[in-house]
């Protein structure tokens, strides 16, 4: 494979033994624990004395504890894992003077970047899967409900989406590590983009929506303006991978969610008729609802990696 295996192995062992990974993993494992504990305890209280609803197990992941649910937490802080694993991938080697030495060995140049990306993605996969498993086990003991086949499938899909989502940020930080010579610059740039895409886009979306289609008060507003407002808001928010990811995973983890849309306008008769069908969506239907989101997420991670690949291959190897 032209050196891919050797680079992959080395990077993987570097990832797992590096201090920053241990710190990050400890942090994320701790927060996940706390969140699932809070969710678990409140679930247990609420479940006492009533017939168990379907999909209790998934609520461990989707129920809000004191602050936010696990799914939301991964959406906001998952990208940090990707960024931390990749921000010095190439310029770090350059700064240490090891890049030229590496590519002067009989390997293909792309083995360096492929190996680094694959090792990072593997690390992310191990991390996500272990967090999901730990919380499942924890929840099993706490709530005392055994997950069904569908719940396990949903969790597997959730883990898969999360891996792609975090890998997108890995690809992005690798791209910055190729584009910028300085490690500090590439880290700041990727953090800045993370903050922009994750927090400011949603702010900007509502500002834009309110200036184009202002909705003063909910009651008595023109329905078309309300729809326009909501559409603009959602359209702008879709720029943010976090928005795509949260919508996709919330629907996958919560079968009661039937649409990714935040605004649903229904007449009174429609409400009555739809309330007769308050049963959860089947897994297949949940996937159909978020299919565009899934494709978009996979596409942006692949495009991001493809761009870094191309830039790296075209770049002069010398500083």
């Amino acid at each position, binding site marked *: 494979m*032209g*050196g891919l*295996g*050797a*680079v992959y*192995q*080395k990077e993987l062992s570097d990832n797992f033994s590096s201090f920053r990974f241990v710190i990050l993993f400890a942090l994320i494992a701790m927060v996940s624990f706390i969140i699932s504990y809070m969710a678990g305890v409140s679930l247990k209280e609420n479940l006492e004395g009533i017939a168990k609803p379907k999909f209790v197990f998934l609520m461990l992941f989707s129920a809000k504890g004191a602050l936010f649910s696990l799914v939301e937490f991964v959406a906001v802080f998952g990208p940090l894992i990707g960024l931390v694993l990749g921000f010095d991938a190439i310029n770090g080697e350059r700064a*240490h*003077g*090891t890049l*030229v*030495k*590496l*590519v*002067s*060995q*009989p*390997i*293909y140049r792309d083995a360096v970047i492929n190996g680094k990306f694959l090792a990072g993605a593997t690390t992310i996969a191990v991390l996500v899967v272990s967090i999901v498993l730990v919380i499942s086990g924890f929840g099993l003991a706490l709530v005392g409900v055994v997950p069904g086949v569908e719940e396990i499938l949903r969790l597997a899909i959730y883990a898969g989406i999360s891996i792609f989502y975090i890998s997108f940020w890995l690809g992005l930080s690798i791209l910055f590590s190729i584009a910028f010579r300085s490690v500090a610059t590439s880290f700041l740039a990727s953090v800045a983009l993370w903050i922009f895409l994750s927090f400011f886009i949603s702010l900007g979306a509502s500002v834009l929506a309110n200036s184009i289609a202002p909705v003063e008060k909910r009651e008595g507003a023109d329905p078309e303006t309300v729809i326009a407002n909501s559409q603009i808001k959602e359209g702008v928010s879709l720029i943010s991978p976090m928005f795509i990811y949260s919508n996709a995973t919330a629907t996958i983890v919560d079968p009661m969610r039937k649409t990714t849309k935040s605004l649903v306008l229904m007449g009174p008769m429609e409400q009555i008729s739809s309330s007769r069908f308050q049963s959860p969506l089947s897994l297949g239907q949940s996937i159909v609802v978020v299919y565009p989101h899934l494709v978009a997420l996979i596409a942006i991670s692949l495009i991001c990696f493809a761009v870094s690949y191309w830039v790296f291959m075209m770049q*002069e*190897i*010398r500083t």
Partner: protein
Amino acid sequence: METQAVIQTTELTKRYDHQTAVDRLNFQVMEGEIFGFLGPNGAGKTTTLLMLLGLSRPSEGGARVCGLDPERKAMEVKRIVGYLPENVGFYGDMDAVQSLRYVADLNRIPVREAEDRIREVLKLVGLTENGGKKVSAYSRGMKQRLGIAEVLLKDPKVMFLDEPTLGLDPDGAVRLIELIQSLNQERKITVLLSSHHLQQVQKISHRVGIMIKGRMVAEGSIEALAREKFGVGDEKFTLEEIYMKYFQEV
């Protein structure tokens, strides 16, 4: 036995956006010789070496390394050429043996064979006792030795050594130069050596080339160059004098 050219360039040229780094370069390095590759900083020596390794694409012209075109057969060329870059770096958290193991992996040397070879090259460069020490604790001279050990691991036919003596103390530089000479004599490795330590280069080089502003202004044995510049092929002219003469003329 007729010696062959191991490295041959024809009109090798590298242009960046605004400047020409290497300008229609023609030179040869013969099998089994130590070729002193001299020139001021920024003359285009490293760029030339990168093109010979297929790591940088020539704008015009071409080169042959052991009969192979580095542009098309980069993998084959990199398999037989060991390159020690200027200011070579190491992964600070690895020790010398781990570092060498990684290089062995990259060269796809089977594990068992690699262990033997690692021991052998560490002994050759005199680092056996420091094999388990983290590279970040190495002195500059030890790092250069480790760099040469990494190059030797792949059992190269040709070595490109880019400023291996830079920043070494006089004693370290002399010992490194002696090591290079013994490798050339005992293992029959052709060496392309770029260095500013002209005295040392003079001691071990069979031939030298002087590169200034992207052009090879002189190529040949030291006697031949002395004859050309001073009219006498005498041993009394040092390489330094010859070099300065060429440098002032350009």
